[in-house]
């Protein structure tokens, strides 16, 4: 948290209901189970998230994350096509550092990994609202209509645009400050 322009850092253990739901995921063809060993294969049983102000900060924080933690996977989650708008965020699967493991704990029951997400304020705001509206597991909620999906994509595009503008303003201000100091 001593790093500049970090809005918040949160962490959570995956809820049991959420884990069971994910463990029961079926894939096509043949509606087969996605996870044959969910306790080993589901790598976000522990999740952490860093929310930062600007897109430029995501790269800065990436250098810090990879400096201190050991990744087994990292990727920018973006829509499949540049014509689409949806979820944006940088995701890592990192080895759980031994510093957080108490020696009284049963190591066999502790996950090997945790998932870290680094997002801007706008990316986070969109993903939280989208998660609430678009993926509610409640059996009473009906699937989104085409127009509703387009509205979600529209809001993602707005959030993306706001991120671009804020980042441009931030960088031009930083450049101006840098120039005046020379």
């Amino acid at each position, binding site marked *: 948290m001593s790093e500049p322009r970090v809005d918040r850092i949160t962490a959570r253990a995956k809820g049991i209901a959420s884990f069971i739901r994910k463990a029961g995921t079926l894939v096509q063809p043949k509606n087969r189970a996605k996870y044959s060993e969910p306790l*080993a294969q589901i*790598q976000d049983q522990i999740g952490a998230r860093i929310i930062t102000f600007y897109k430029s900060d995501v790269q800065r924080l990436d250098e810090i994350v990879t400096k201190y933690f050991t990744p087994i996977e990292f990727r920018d989650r973006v829509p499949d096509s540049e014509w689409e708008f949806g979820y944006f965020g940088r995701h890592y699967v990192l080895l759980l*550092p031994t*510093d957080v493991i108490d020696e009284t704990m049963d190591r066999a029951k502790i996950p*090997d990994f945790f998932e870290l997400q680094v997002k801007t304020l706008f990316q986070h705001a969109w993903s939280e609202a989208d998660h609430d509206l678009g993926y509610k597991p409640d059996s009473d909620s009906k699937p989104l209509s085409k127009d509703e999906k387009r509205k979600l994509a529209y809001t993602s595009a707005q959030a993306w645009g706001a991120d671009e503008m804020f980042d441009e303003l931030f960088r031009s201000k930083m450049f101006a400050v840098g120039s005046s100091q020379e």
Partner: protein
Amino acid sequence: MSVRHIHTFLVHPGKGSATPASIVGTQVPLTGGMFNLLDGIYAKSDTECDVDIAFVPTADGKQTNACRDLILAYLAKPDLVKAQAIASRLAGHTDGRSGLGLLFLIVGKEGREHKIVLSRFPTDSAIYVDENPKALTVEFLERVFMKNKTSYKAVVYQHASLKAGFCAGRAVDKQLNSLLGEPSNYWISDFLLSDFRTTPAMGTRRLAVAIRDAVKKSALPIKQELTAAGTLAGGLAGQHLSIADFAMRMGLSKEARDAIIGELNSPALAQEIFRFDAGTFRSLVAYKAVELNNGAMLMADSERFDDVFQKEAVEGVRDQVKFTTEGVIVDEKLRTAR
């Protein structure tokens, strides 16, 4: 009996070779003197292999690793063909400086968990002596493979899941800090396609914060030991060591060592090996400060403190010291109370 399968291969260095030597191997029976030796290696691997490592992802971040894939394939079906694929990989990442090696792949089961030890014996020459009351026979032996050589390598992996486990293991590599001969990291970084589990920044930060916090809480003699160690730490730049190693190399007393380890979340963290990063250490232990009973507070860069301030004992007055320094004033500050 834990060990279920053992395969062995004579591995010629083949890195960069257009016509690598063929790799010949065989299965080792699970009885006899050879088995007893290898069973011992398998059993002791948990303590002998003391460097925590992890397979690295691809350059674009995918959770795929060529060496891990070979090891998992072998564990799923431990046969000569799959074992040979691992031996071939080793040959392709071994150059002439490492020489001929004898590779053992030892597979076992520990309860629900699969365990595999890869053990590489380097080649050496030896003299065999046969003595009887009437004669002495000496014979020169080539291709003798010895475990106690500095260039012995091994790695152990253990996990219950062949689908999602085996991302991390423990290796032994006595050449980590070697300045001569082969690049010691060919075993970990090239063949195993791995890196240290504890990054230089993480390990060094852990050490620096433990020293800094131990200094705050310790009695004056221990404080002085720890600050002295802090000023000398810069000489360890690039060295692979654990916090326990650091205490030993600095010649710290048991009390000072215990003070550092007491600041860690668990004593086991003192055994994790990492590459010492001088920059990280300096950023966290930047300044050394000495307070005198006359109210003076002397502060300087921790690595240069003893150069900036000259210290001498005051004759005739017990424990009294005199510090001397000279320079041009560039700044003055008012500080808040402690």
